[in-house]
């Protein structure tokens, strides 16, 4: 069973001061059987989140491609000084653009940086509020009327990491998941600033096929709207001279019906259930095309709710109601399990 409860991770955090140790095995889970490998889909935290999500504040998070990163805890980060951080960061970006020439802090610059809190994005009361970083191009003086254009945005979050924040040593803030949208160059500049400023470390977060199948099952189980788009699974066939991708689309209702027969307890997903679900899809495919999909690599999952690519790129779906805590918790576990 995949262990999704962060407390397992925490045990190994006790002694580690600065960086999260490589705990890859924890994301795979120690114990066997149903009893352990469970993830509550809608604990109280999830409900809280859904309720708050109706606000417009987070609408911009949807329908965008986000690259995933895992972040080690931030040292001496305080949400009270966000404005000062924004000034420092914009100066840093300008300095980087001028190949390291120092820039006076506080002067008006080409690129405006805004750092703000997203208090709505919380799984539970104990969670740290999510932090949003936005870079926008300042309009030219000649065309005053034009709007500021956001060129890059990224946000840190921590959802349902109760035990995580409880066990964190003082001076540390744990926001283990970072999502970025925009040019790669900005990501690396902002990343290096955070790295220098708060002594943290960014890692690209890839999603393994096993976790992709998890997400496929989880999103399939969500309630459907009318005319939901089909679920699509993309597989790549390894060890062939030329690359071959297989795309496998299933009607959303059909997938949902299958998942409902597989799932034993509503609100919970076990590894066994995910395996059975995927095996059913694979055997259906095998009957028609005589290809064992289990011998290939699952590369991408996309559903009406969201889509995820194994390179660590996700796109949150069209309906904001399914911006579920469980998904973020999954990402959280992934981020903590990352080497």
């Amino acid at each position, binding site marked *: *069973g995949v262990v999704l409860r962060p407390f397992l991770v925490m045990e190994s955090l006790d002694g580690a001061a600065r960086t999260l140790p490589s705990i890859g095995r924890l994301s*795979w*889970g120690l114990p066997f059987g149903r009893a352990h490998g469970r993830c509550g889909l809608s604990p109280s935290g999830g409900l809280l989140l859904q309720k708050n999500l109706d606000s417009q504040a987070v609408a911009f998070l949807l329908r965008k491609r986000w690259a995933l990163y895992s972040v080690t805890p931030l040292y001496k980060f305080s949400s009270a000084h966000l404005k000062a951080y924004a000034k420092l960061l914009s100066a840093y970006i300008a300095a980087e653009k001028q190949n390291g020439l120092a820039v006076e802090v506080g002067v008006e610059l080409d690129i405006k940086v805004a750092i703000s809190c997203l208090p709505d994005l919380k799984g539970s009361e104990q969670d740290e509020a999510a932090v949003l970083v936005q870079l926008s191009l300042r309009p030219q003086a000649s065309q005053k009327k034009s709007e500021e254009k956001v060129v890059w945005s990224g946000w840190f979050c921590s959802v349902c990491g109760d035990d995580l924040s409880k066990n964190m040593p003082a001076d540390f803030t744990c926001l283990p998941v970072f999502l970025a949208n925009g040019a790669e160059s900005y990501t690396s500049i902002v990343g290096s600033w955070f790295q220098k400023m708060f002594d943290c470390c960014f890692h690209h977060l890839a999603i*393994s*096929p*096993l976790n992709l199948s998890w997400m496929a099952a989880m999103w399939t189980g969500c309630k459907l709207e009318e005319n939901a788009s089909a679920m699509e699974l993309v597989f790549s066939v390894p060890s062939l001279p030329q690359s071959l991708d297989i795309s496998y689309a299933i009607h959303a209702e059909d997938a949902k019906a299958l998942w409902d027969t597989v799932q034993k307890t509503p609100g919970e997903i076990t590894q066994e259930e995910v395996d059975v679900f995927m095996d059913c899809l694979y055997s259906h495919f095998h009957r028609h095309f005589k290809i064992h999909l*289990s011998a290939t*690599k699952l590369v991408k999952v996309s559903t009406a709710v969201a889509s995820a690519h*194994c390179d660590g790129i996700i796109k949150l779906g069209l309906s904001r109601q399914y911006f579920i805590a469980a998904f973020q918790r999954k990402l959280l576990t992934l981020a903590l399990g990352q080497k």
Partner: protein
Amino acid sequence: MAVFQPFDKLPVLNSATLLLVGSDRGLQQELAKAMLQEKKSFKISIHLATSLPLPSEGDHLRPRIDLIVFMIDVKTKYSLKNVEASLAHVAASFFLGKVCFLVTGVGRVNYCSVEMSSIWKLGEVYCSPVLYCELELERTRVATAQRLLRMLQICAGHVPGVSALTFNFMLRNSY
């Protein structure tokens, strides 16, 4: 359903036989090649099979098999299923030290399609050691080949005073 027996044939003088079972032929051959290139004081023959049972026609030609290595690739779930299906054709007495599971693709967590716990479970249920390696890397492949050769030597009874069962017990206790 033909079932293998570990002691139904007599050993051949100063030689040992290994059976590699796995769905990826390329990796199998690479590993076999690496094992053949190693320096050794005894003759070895390596039999490759994608799955068990082996065809019964060649039964009388086949020498006594001293060690069965089941190869599991963490990148494909099919390899695990294949191994699980093949295990039914192995006699219980083989699991007294003459079977081992070789998990390859370790260290590529991002490509992982198999749950690690199911592999541990397999090792536990079948009382056999689980070796982790990455056969696509030259160095680990060579190290794995050496390790397997040493195990094979013990399983074939070439090391005085150490039987396959003793070795298996020591290996499992050291986890």
